[in-house]
């Protein structure tokens, strides 16, 4: 690992953040019958499943979980090589008139969420859309704000935030790389 | 007329001499530095008899946008040629005394090389009725070579009659050997590559079958046959067999068939589209060997100029043919002389003596001896030149050698005692 990298959240911190987000979602939803969690690939999907597990532990109800790939809706497609698509899976019953919680690992410029809102718009018409992120690192470029945040991490633009989750990376942790400005 | 001295030149690459030229003939082979007259420096250069091309398309009359007699003979002179045979597939076709005399006169006016018109075998190259071969032979152009080149005289009876008829005036039929039915819509050599590229094949057998028939016909009627642009190993075998049987057959090979292979077609760049098509590497090897052992008598360019738009298109729509006059010597040097397959004297045979004999051109193809007509190509064997299309004298640019570095350079050309090219430029 980069010698300048330092861990800001370990697996216990992440577990606590997920449980707290689950509590807040349940509270806002006042029961979770119309709730759907849609993770944004890759790590957002793993986090969505964990939040659903936490909700189940709290409420004893199953929250449908899906994934929403936003690649085809990105506004920076021409700035990078064409990339492989990730799966989009919408739970049976669709998103119409449901409360959809988008789940992503890091909220940064807000462009990914803008793309996700566009993608969701083509899938159906939810009654409400909320946003849950594990880390909010600031530097928004669009008028987007999260409804549920695991941790606010003030960062400089020269730093990188790396989220690792066990399902994808083999371990849970959040690290910051690079020099603060 | 003052005399000219080629100072210190090496005839056939042998010991240096001063070649002294007066009144259009070689008058002396003097010790270096002793020849008297106007000096052309040629130290370390090789002197060869001026090249004679049996197969040139000058395009005039009819396609003056591609080439004219003037531009084509400029290209010829720069290539070391002192005589070219202008093919008959012009518009109108050179199938009457009138057309061949016109071409011959244009050559006289240009004054750079001897232009020997080739007469069509059949009217309009249609392959149905004989053209007036005798009238062309007895015209001012003194036609001796007859060919429907571009098309094959495929009717066996017509071919037999033509072979017989031209005996009366020492003519020869130069056959473009291509069985038409086997080559309908043909685009490239038929082989594994044509199958893969999805281009209709031009099978070797379409050439070989016609050559086999024609050598047997020539033997049967006791006539002289010349085979144009031999392109396959099988054709070489047939000709070798015929010569061994005593058939009066001669054959030519183009420079491009000595150096290029069908692999180039993979680019689908029509600059490589030519008829007969580029063949396999094995064919190229067989052609070089046949030229070396004399089975193939001559190098002939099949210089075929085409305007840019006829090549700057998709493969099937493109015209067939490539330039050859200005690069023929370099290709011969690269493929035959440098590898040691031909000596300088052998090369003189293949590019001058034999073609002149086949075309019955009495003033060409002389050995470099006192009394010979002074037709000379003076070449620098040590030079290496990168082919640059825009630097060519031909009106067209369809050379397949763009960017290729080739050995040898024609420095001076002397036609009937008059320099036509000096230091690589038109005199």
């Amino acid at each position: 690992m980069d010698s300048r990298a330092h861990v800001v959240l370990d697996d216990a911190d992440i577990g606590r953040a997920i449980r707290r987000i689950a509590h807040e979602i349940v509270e806002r939803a006042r029961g979770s019958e119309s709730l759907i969690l849609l993770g944004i690939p890759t790590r957002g999907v793993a986090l969505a499943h964990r939040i659903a597990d936490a909700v189940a532990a709290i409420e004893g109800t199953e929250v449908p979980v899906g994934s929403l790939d936003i690649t085809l809706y990105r506004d920076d497609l021409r700035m990078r090589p064409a990339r492989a698509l990730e799966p989009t899976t919408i739970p049976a019953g669709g998103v119409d008139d449901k409360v959809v919680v988008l789940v992503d690992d890091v909220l940064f410029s807000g462009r990914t969420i803008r793309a996700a809102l566009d993608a969701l718009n083509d899938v159906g018409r939810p009654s409400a859309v909320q946003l849950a992120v594990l880390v909010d690192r600031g530097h928004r470029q669009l008028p987007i704000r999260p409804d549920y945040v695991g941790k606010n991490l003030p960062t400089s633009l020269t730093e990188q935030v790396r989220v690792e989750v066990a399902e994808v990376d083999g371990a849970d942790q959040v690290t910051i790389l690079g020099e603060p400005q | 007329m003052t005399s000219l001295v080629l100072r210190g030149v090496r005839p056939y690459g042998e010991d240096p001499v001063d070649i002294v030229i007066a009144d259009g003939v070689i008058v002396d082979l003097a010790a270096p530095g002793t020849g008297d007259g106007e000096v052309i420096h040629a130290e370390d250069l090789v002197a060869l008899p001026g090249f004679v091309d049996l197969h040139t398309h000058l395009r005039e009359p009819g396609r003056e946008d591609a080439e004219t007699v003037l531009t084509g003979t400029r290209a010829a002179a720069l290539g070391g040629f002192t005589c070219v045979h202008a093919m008959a597939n012009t518009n109108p076709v050179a199938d009457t005394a009138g057309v061949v005399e016109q071409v011959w006169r244009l050559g006289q006016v240009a004054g750079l090389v001897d232009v020997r018109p080739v007469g069509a075998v059949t009217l309009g190259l249609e392959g149905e009725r004989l053209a007036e071969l005798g009238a062309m032979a007895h015209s001012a152009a003194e036609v001796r070579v007859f060919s429907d080149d571009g098309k094959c005289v495929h009717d066996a009876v017509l071919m037999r009659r033509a072979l017989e008829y031209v005996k009366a005036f020492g003519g020869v039929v130069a056959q473009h050997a291509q069985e038409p039915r086997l080559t309908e819509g043909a685009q490239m050599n038929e082989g594994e590559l044509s199958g893969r590229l999805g281009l209709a094949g031009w099978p070797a057998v379409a050439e070989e079958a016609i050559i086999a028939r024609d050598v047997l016909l020539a033997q049967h009627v006791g006539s002289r046959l010349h085979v144009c642009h031999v392109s396959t190993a099988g054709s070489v075998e047939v000709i070798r067999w015929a010569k061994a049987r005593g058939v009066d057959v001669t054959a030519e090979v183009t420079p491009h068939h000595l150096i290029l292979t069908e692999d180039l077609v993979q680019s689908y760049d029509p600059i490589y589209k030519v008829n007969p098509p580029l063949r396999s590497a094995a064919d190229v090897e067989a052609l070089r060997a046949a030229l070396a052992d004399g089975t193939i008598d001559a190098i002939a360019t099949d210089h075929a100029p085409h305007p840019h738009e006829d090549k700057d298109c998709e493969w099937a729509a493109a015209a067939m043919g490539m330039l050859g006059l200005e690069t023929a010597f370099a290709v011969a040097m690269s493929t035959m002389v440098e590898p040691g397959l031909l000596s300088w004297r052998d090369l003189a045979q293949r590019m001058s003596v034999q073609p002149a004999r086949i075309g019955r051109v009495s003033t060409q193809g002389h050995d470099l001896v006192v009394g010979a007509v002074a037709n000379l190509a003076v070449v620098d064997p040590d030079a290496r030149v990168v082919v640059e299309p825009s630097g060519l004298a031909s009106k067209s640019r369809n050379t397949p050698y763009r960017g290729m570095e080739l050995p040898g350079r024609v420095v001076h050309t002397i036609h009937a005692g008059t320099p036509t090219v000096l230091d690589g430029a038109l005199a």
Partner: protein
Amino acid sequence: MKHLLSAADLSRDEAVLVLDTAAELAAVTDRSVKKLPTLRGRTVVNLFFEDSTRTRISFEVAAKRLSADVINFAAKGSSVSKGESLKDTALTLEAMGADAVVIRHGSSGAPHRLATAGWIGGSVVNAGDGTHEHPTQALLDAFTLRRHLREGSGDLDGLRVAIVGDILHSRVARSNVLLMRTLGAEVTLIAPPTLMPYGVESWPCSVSYDIDTVLPDVDAVMMLRVQAERMHAAYFPSTLEYSRLYGLDVARMSRLPDHAIVMHPGPMNRGMEISADVADSPRAVMVEQVANGVSVRMAVLYLLLGGMKEDI
């Protein structure tokens, strides 16, 4: 990748990427909103020098589902039929700002010329050239095979496919032999020897003149269109003899293993290479091939145009 000219341009990973992408894009077809904004502002020109309504429409639907602007340029009735050259047509399209040109041309290699002659700067997709190649057809065939026989993922390793018919004149066969090989399938070409390309024995596939011995061992059979006019050029004596020896009828279809599927790139000559009851049987997947064609062409357009222009 900048162009798709030949199935041979694709490595195994690239081919699988196209198929995986197509699989994701196929899901869009099932939604009520069938459009994606991905290629908004990009221009795709369908340049068709041969009539092929089905291929042109397939590319048109694919481009439109990705929000590209589509210009259909058919040779008939245009300046092309008045003798305008491919080059001048290309220069015109370049001036109009075409990001991709989808070209169907009767001359083998025309897409290569378009891509390499320096006439245009955009991507070139070969939608069928002469008797050379038709790579997107091979991709949709591979996609269809994978759906039915490999559960929709990975490559086609070990799959056995027979291609039957006019191999000599078939761009579909050429592209399929190349792509199937890349994806690990084993191809057997079946045709009378007159309809085999010269040098076919050096192709990466098997060759047979007898359909009946091959069918029991294949997972899929692909029937190619055979034009009845070919008999006038002595490729076969009569349509009757052709269909008797090489056509797929119900009796012959019964020789196939139970899981095997029947494919045809269309348009079919019912009664010639395929009998009507085979064409309409549940084992025939022709309608699905058409649907898959749109997904595969969306994937190709996305992968060629979805990224940076410089990325090759």
